[in-house]
C-alpha cells in the first residue's frame, strides 16, 4: 500500500509550508546584509533546511537543489568562513526569487520545471570561493551521518527493554540510514515497522514515533523491537526495504547499549551541522533552544478556515444584538415589577450574559486579528530592490509590526502602503548626490510605523526626502486643466496638495516603471475610502513628507454615532466623525447657493441629510433656530451633516443591504439596534461623492 501513496494530498501541505518558510527567508535575508547576526543566520538556515527536506520529500528536485546550495553557502556564513557581502546577499535573494518562481509553478500544477542550473552553479561558486576548507567541512559532517552513531537510551526505556528480555522475549535493534534521494521517509519507516511487527512488537524508536511520522529526522532511525521470528528472516525482510543506504541489525543487549553518551541524537536533528557547531559553540547555542520552543508553538495552534471565523463573527454579532435587547427588556420589567424577587435574579443574569458576550466578541475579534507584520514583511525587500534600481540609498525603518488588526483590513491595506512607499522612494528620497549637496546623509530613511489609537490603527509613512513642492503641484494642476489659475491662487497649500490624490496626476518628469504614471495615489485614496479610513499629508519642502493613515480595526463591527433624521435612526460610523456641534441656524451661511458653516475659521460645506437622503418623514424635535451638525471627515475632506437630533453612541454589527434595496443612495449597510429596530448605516464616502456631483 505504502508505495503508491497519493502525493497530491501532501501538495497542499507542502505549498503551505513553503509559503511560511519562504516568507521567513525573505524577511531575514533582506536584513542579513545590514545585520548578519548568528541568530539570523540560524533562522535562515533552518528555513532553507526545512524547505530542502520537504521539497525533496515531494520530489521537487530543482527546488531541493537550490535550497541545498543555499544551505551550503549559509553554512559557510554561519561558520564565519564567508562574510555577507553584496554578492552573497544578491545570490541569496536571487535564490529566493527562484524558489518563489518554482513554488508558483508547482502551485499552478506545472511541476518543478524551473531551470536552476545557473543559480546553483553561482551558489556553488560562492561556496567554493569562500575558502577551500569549508567545502570539506560541509562534506565532512555529511559523511559523519552515514556512520551509525548508536543512540543512547533513556534509562526507563532501557529498563523496559531489559524487562522484556527478562520475560523471555528476544529484543533486537536495527538502525537504518536512508539514502539521500529517499523521497518519502515515513513510507520507508512504515515498511520497516510493518516488517518487524509481523511477528513482534516495536518497543521503542529513536527518534520518537511522532518525529518519524513528521519526517523530522535526518536520514537515520533506530527501532527496538521484540520478535519471535528467526534472525535471518528478519534480516532478509529488512534488506528488502528500498532506499536504504546502510542497515545495522543485531540482537539488543543492555550491556552494549549502556555506553554513556552525553546527548541523544534525537535532540540534534541537524546532524550534519553539529560538527561545525561544536567548533563554534556560540553558533549552536541559540539554535538548540529555539528548536523545541518552535515545536511547542506549532502544537498549540490550529489552522481555521477563514469562512468559519466569519460565520462565528456573524453569530456573535446576532448574540450581541439579542443581549442588548434582553437587557432593555430586563430594564423595562424591572420598572414594571419592582417588587418581584425574580427581577433581581434576572438583572444579575443579564449582567452576566452581558459580560460573557462582550468577552466572546473580543476573543473572536482577536482570533481574526493578524499582526500588520504580515503586510510589512514584503516591504524591506521591495525598498531594497527599488532603491538599487533607482541608484538611491534608502533605509527602511519599521516600527509597530506587532500591531494587530482584523484580517479584513489586512487584506486591503497592502496595496495603498506599497503605493505610498514606492512614491516615497521614487519621488521623495533624492539621489545620494543631491542629498549630500543639501547637507543630508547620502542614505535616505523611510520610517514606517503602526500603532493603535483607540479603535483605530494609525500607520505613518515618513521620509526625509525633498518634500513636495506645492508650487509645482499647482503649476501642474493648472497645466492639466484640473483647475484654473485664478481658482488655484485662492486655494490653500493644503488643498493644493490634495491634487496628488487626483487620478492621472503625477509630478514626476519621467515616467519610470516604479511610479510617475499618476495612478498610484488615487488608488490609495479610493482604497482607504472604501475602508472608512482617513489619509493626511504633511510635507516640508526640503525636509520630507509624512503620510498618516487612520483605519478602523475591523470592518465587521463598528462604533457608530446614532442620529435621527426625519424620525429614522441612522448610524454614522464613528471613525468618520470628527466632532458634533449644536449650532444656531443663523451660523449656516449660503455661498453661491451652497450652504457652509465656519468652524474655527475653516469653511465647511453643509449637507442636510434629510434632503440628501430624500427623507420625507416629519422631524420630531428640531427647533427652527438651531440644529445639530455632525462634522465628518473623509480622507482629508470635511463636511457637516445636519441631523435632527443625536441619539447616542453604540457598537453595531454591519449587515449588508439586501440586493432588493438596490444601491441605497448614501447608505452602506444596515444594522439592528438594541430595541430590535433596523437602522441604516450612512455611507460617508458616497455622501461626499453626491456632494461633488453638485459641485462640478
Amino acid at each position, binding site marked *: 500500500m505504502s508505495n503508491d501513496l497519493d502525493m497530491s494530498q501532501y501538495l497542499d501541505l507542502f505549498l503551505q509550508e513553503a509559503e511560511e518558510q519562504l516568507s521567513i527567508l525573505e524577511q531575514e535575508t533582506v536584513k542579513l546584509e545590514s545585520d548578519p547576526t548568528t541568530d539570523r543566520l540560524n533562522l535562515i538556515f533552518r528555513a532553507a533546511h526545512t524547505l530542502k527536506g520537504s521539497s525533496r520529500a515531494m520530489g521537487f528536485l530543482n527546488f531541493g537543489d537550490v535550497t541545498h546550495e543555499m544551505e551550503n553557502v549559509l553554512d559557510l556564513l554561519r561558520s564565519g568562513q564567508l562574510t555577507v557581502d553584496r554578492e552573497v546577499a544578491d545570490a541569496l535573494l536571487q535564490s529566493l526569487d527562484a524558489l518563489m518562481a518554482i513554488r508558483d509553478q508547482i502551485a499552478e500544477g506545472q511541476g518543478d520545471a524551473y531551470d536552476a542550473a545557473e543559480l546553483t552553479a553561482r551558489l556553488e561558486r560562492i561556496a567554493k570561493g569562500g575558502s577551500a576548507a569549508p567545502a570539506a567541512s560541509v562534506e565532512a559532517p555529511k559523511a559523519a551521518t552515514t556512520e551509525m552513531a548508536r543512540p543512547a537510551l533513556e534509562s526507563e526505556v532501557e529498563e523496559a527493554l531489559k524487562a522484556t528480555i527478562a520475560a523471555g522475549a528476544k529484543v533486537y535493534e536495527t538502525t537504518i540510514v536512508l539514502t539521500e534521494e529517499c523521497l518519502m521517509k515515513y513510507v520507508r519507516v512504515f515498511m520497516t515497522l510493518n516488517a518487524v511487527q509481523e511477528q513482534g512488537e516495536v518497543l521503542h524508536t529513536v527518534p520518537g514515533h511522532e518525529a518519524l511520522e513528521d519526517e523530522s529526522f535526518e536520514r537515520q532511525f533506530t527501532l527496538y523491537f521484540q520478535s519471535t521470528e528467526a534472525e535471518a528472516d528478519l534480516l532478509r525482510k529488512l534488506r528488502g526495504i528500498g532506499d536504504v543506504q546502510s542497515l545495522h541489525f543485531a540482537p539488543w543487549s543492555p550491556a552494549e547499549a549502556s555506553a554513556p553518551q552525553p546527548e541523544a541524537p534525537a535532540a540534534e536533528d541537524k546532524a550534519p551541522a553539529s560538527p561545525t557547531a561544536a567548533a563554534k559553540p556560540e553558533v549552536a547555542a541559540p539554535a538548540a533552544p529555539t528548536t523545541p520552543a518552535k515545536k511547542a508553538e506549532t502544537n498549540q495552534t490550529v489552522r481555521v478556515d477563514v469562512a468559519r471565523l466569519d460565520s462565528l463573527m456573524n453569530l456573535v454579532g446576532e448574540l450581541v444584538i439579542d443581549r442588548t435587547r434582553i437587557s432593555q427588556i430586563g430594564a423595562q420589567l424591572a420598572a414594571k415589577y419592582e417588587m418581584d424577587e425574580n427581577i433581581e435574579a434576572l438583572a444579575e443574569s443579564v449582567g452576566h450574559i452581558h459580560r460573557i458576550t462582550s468577552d466572546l466578541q473580543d476573543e473572536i475579534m482577536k482570533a481574526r486579528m493578524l499582526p500588520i507584520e504580515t503586510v510589512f514583511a514584503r516591504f524591506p525587500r521591495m525598498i531594497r530592490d527599488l532603491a538599487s534600481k533607482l541608484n538611491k540609498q534608502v533605509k527602511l525603518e519599521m516600527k509597530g509590526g506587532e500591531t494587530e488588526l482584523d484580517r479584513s483590513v489586512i487584506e486591503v491595506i497592502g496595496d495603498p502602503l506599497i503605493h505610498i512607499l514606492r512614491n516615497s522612494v521614487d519621488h521623495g528620497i533624492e539621489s545620494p548626490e543631491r542629498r549630500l549637496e543639501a547637507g543630508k546623509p547620502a542614505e535616505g530613511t523611510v520610517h514606517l510605523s503602526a500603532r493603535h489609537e483607540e479603535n483605530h490603527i494609525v500607520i505613518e509613512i515618513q521620509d526625509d526626502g525633498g518634500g513636495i513642492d506645492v508650487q509645482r503641484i499647482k503649476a501642474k494642476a493648472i497645466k492639466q486643466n484640473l483647475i484654473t489659475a485664478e481658482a488655484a491662487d485662492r486655494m490653500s497649500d493644503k488643498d493644493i496638495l490634495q491634487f496628488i490624490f487626483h487620478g492621472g496626476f503625477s509630478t514626476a518628469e519621467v515616467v519610470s516603471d516604479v511610479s510617475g504614471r499618476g495612478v498610484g495615489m488615487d488608488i490609495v485614496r479610493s482604497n482607504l475610502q472604501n475602508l472608512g479610513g482617513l489619509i493626511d499629508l504633511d510635507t516640508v519642502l526640503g525636509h520630507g513628507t509624512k503620510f498618516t493613515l487612520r483605519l478602523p480595526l475591523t470592518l465587521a463591527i463598528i462604533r457608530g454615532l446614532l442620529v435621527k433624521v426625519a424620525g429614522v435612526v441612522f448610524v454614522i460610523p464613528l471613525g468618520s466623525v470628527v466632532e458634533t456641534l449644536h449650532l444656531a441656524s443663523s451660523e449656516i451661511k449660503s455661498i453661491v447657493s451652497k450652504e457652509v458653516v465656519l468652524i474655527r475659521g475653516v469653511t465647511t460645506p453643509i449637507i442636510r441629510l434629510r434632503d440628501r437622503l430624500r427623507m420625507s418623514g416629519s422631524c420630531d424635535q428640531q427647533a427652527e433656530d438651531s440644529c445639530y451638525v455632525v462634522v465628518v471627515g473623509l480622507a482629508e475632506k470635511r463636511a457637516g451633516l445636519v441631523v435632527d437630533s443625536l441619539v447616542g453612541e453604540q457598537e453595531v454589527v454591519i449587515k449588508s443591504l439586501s440586493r432588493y434595496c*438596490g444601491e441605497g443612495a448614501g447608505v452602506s449597510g444596515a444594522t439592528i439596534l438594541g430595541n430590535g429596530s433596523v437602522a441604516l448605516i450612512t455611507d460617508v464616502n458616497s455622501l461626499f461623492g453626491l456632494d461633488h456631483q453638485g459641485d462640478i
Partner: protein
Amino acid sequence: MTTETFSAESQYVVFKIGPESYGIDIFRVNEIIRLRPITPVPGTPPYVKGLVNLRGKTVPIFDLSERLGMFADEQTDSWRIVILDGKHGLVGVIVHQVCEVTTLSGDNVDAAPPMTSSMNADLVLGVAKTEVGLITLLDMDKVLGE
C-alpha cells in the same frame, strides 16, 4: 410559457389586497408574520418600504398593493407580511389579509385576461376560478423585479 406551471396540482397561499384575492405558490412562502416597524431606505423605488428585523436578519419589504399599481389602503389589524424566498435572499411582501391555502389544478387556471384594472399584466401568471371567486396568481419573480 406558463402552462407548465399549472400542469399539476399545486398549493397556493391565498391573500387579499383590497377586495381582490391573489395567490402565491406555497413553495415560495417561508413564513407569514405580523406587521412590524419598517425602516425606510433612501433611494429605493416607492414600493420598497424598507427593512424589518426578522430574528436578527434585515429583510426588505415590498408593498404589494403599490407594486401592483393600486391605491394604498388604510392599514388594519389583518395586514401581514408574507416572507418569501427570493433569488437574492429573503424578502417580504405586505398583504392586506391572509385567507387560506388552497389547491389549484391546471384545469381551473386561465391565462391572464386582458387587463381589467390598472394592474400591471406582466406580473400575473394566470387567473384561477374557484367557488369563492377569482384568484389572481402572481409571478413573484417579476413582482420582485428579478
